[in-house]
């Protein structure tokens, strides 16, 4: 009986973990203030949905290090760690 309960709890935490990964990572919901979520909006600022994962990571790292000049992204990228940048890239690359 305790084993069954343990298994059930195990299954439950996996389920919760799977669901939790569907939540946007830290910072993600703020990006669409400038990067249009909708393809209907005309902007010189690129949409992030469906962008190449590695390209997002490189852009953020280059903005952060100052290797790439930005208007505001250089200042914003400095607020994110490598892990957070990876999570953001995963999130946006998976969007349509």
């Amino acid at each position, binding site marked *: 009986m305790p084993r069954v309960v343990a298994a059930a709890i195990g299954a*439950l935490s996996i*389920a*919760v973990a799977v*669901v*939790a990964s569907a*939540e*946007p990572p*830290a*910072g993600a*919901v*703020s*990006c*669409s*203030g*400038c*990067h*249009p*979520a*909708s393809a*209907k*909006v*005309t*902007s*010189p*600022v690129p949409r992030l949905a469906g962008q190449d994962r590695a390209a997002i990571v490189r852009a953020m790292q280059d903005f952060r290090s100052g290797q790439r000049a930005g*208007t*505001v992204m250089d*200042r*914003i*990228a*400095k*607020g*994110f760690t490598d892990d*957070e940048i990876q999570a953001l890239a995963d999130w946006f690359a998976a969007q349509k």
Partner: protein
Amino acid sequence: MKITRRRFLELGVVATASAAVLPVPTLAQGAGPRVVVVGGGFAGASCARGLRHVDPRIAVTLIEASPTFTACPFSNGVIAGLRELSAQQFTYEHVAADGITIARQLATAMDVPGKAVVLLDGRRVPYDRLVLAPGIDIRWGALPGYDEPTAAQMPHAWKAGEQTLLLRRQLEAMDDGGLVVISAPANPFRCPPGPYERASLIAHYLKTKKPKSKLLVLDAKDTFSKQRLFQSAWAELYPGLLEWVPLSKGGNVTSVDGATRTLVTDFGKHQAKVANVIPPQKAGRIAELAGVADRSGWCPIDPVTFESKLQPGIHVIGDAAIAGAMPKSAFAANSQAKTCAAAVALLLTGGTPPTPKLINTCYSLVAPDYGISVAGVYAPSNGQLADVPGSGGVSPSDAPRASRAAEAVLAEAWFRTITGEVFG
């Protein structure tokens, strides 16, 4: 036992399925938790849509008295004759199309123990969780002489709409050579760089249309947002036309007289042809009624969930909230709204919201082709939203005119993008 998110979703699916079989339109809605959002601005409309997006099971009601939203960002351009008010106006049809019930009524009372908002017509709107996004109210009387009738003589134009047009008409009617005075309040207030963008664009209007005029900015502060950038641009673009008077030089306005358009400071009196009084402010009235505003008039919140520190189950976002280092801006309001929506959805299903990171970006126009910006990244620290060390800041002080022009273009793109997201 706590209900998991998955279990909750299963329940929701069952409810939806039975609704499809039995034609009872309220069943599916009744099965989900009810979230009521008060205020349909950049914070409220965004949060309502965010809630539906995160979990379509949530029954969302948006309480907003006005059929049209008039945006404050870029409304300084309307005052200066650079754009029309219609470019600032948005409707709620796409918001409603997300399955959000819109109550076009003023929320006039709160039943906090009974968990309901009471509308002007007496209807009660019950909630499981409440999100208040009421924006600001003017603190009438805080500046002696500045009451509602006086605002018709000396417009504040700090809520976009008729007041914006009134200030524009007054500027248009003024003869060349007149004195225009702007009075800027002490912190905190909606849109920290706003008074200085307004001064810039009015100066641009005067320079091009009424060059013998003068603009005086009387300030209750000695420092302000993007100060160095504004001041160096003013010296370049509007020398001799725009004068900023800080607190320490007698800038603090202590009383006004609407009939004579006079502003009194500790150091003297200024009689203006056009006077724009940006008065002291506080959170919108419903915040007070709900008991979420503290003695400052603003609303202390938890930096992870935006839940009130004074009333559990009630969240406060946007200008009304005390959001630590985050300024009272449309971008911040929108960023907070989506973070709060995700947190509320999780709380309703017994989950624990993760530690968020939020962003703010604010553009100001010093001239139609001259933009400057401030940006920041924020995370909870010691119960407040604090700047993430090393991040954020303003446009470089030595940037070439080409990048000022680029920021002016980006400013307009930002407005299209954010209004497209919130109302489109």
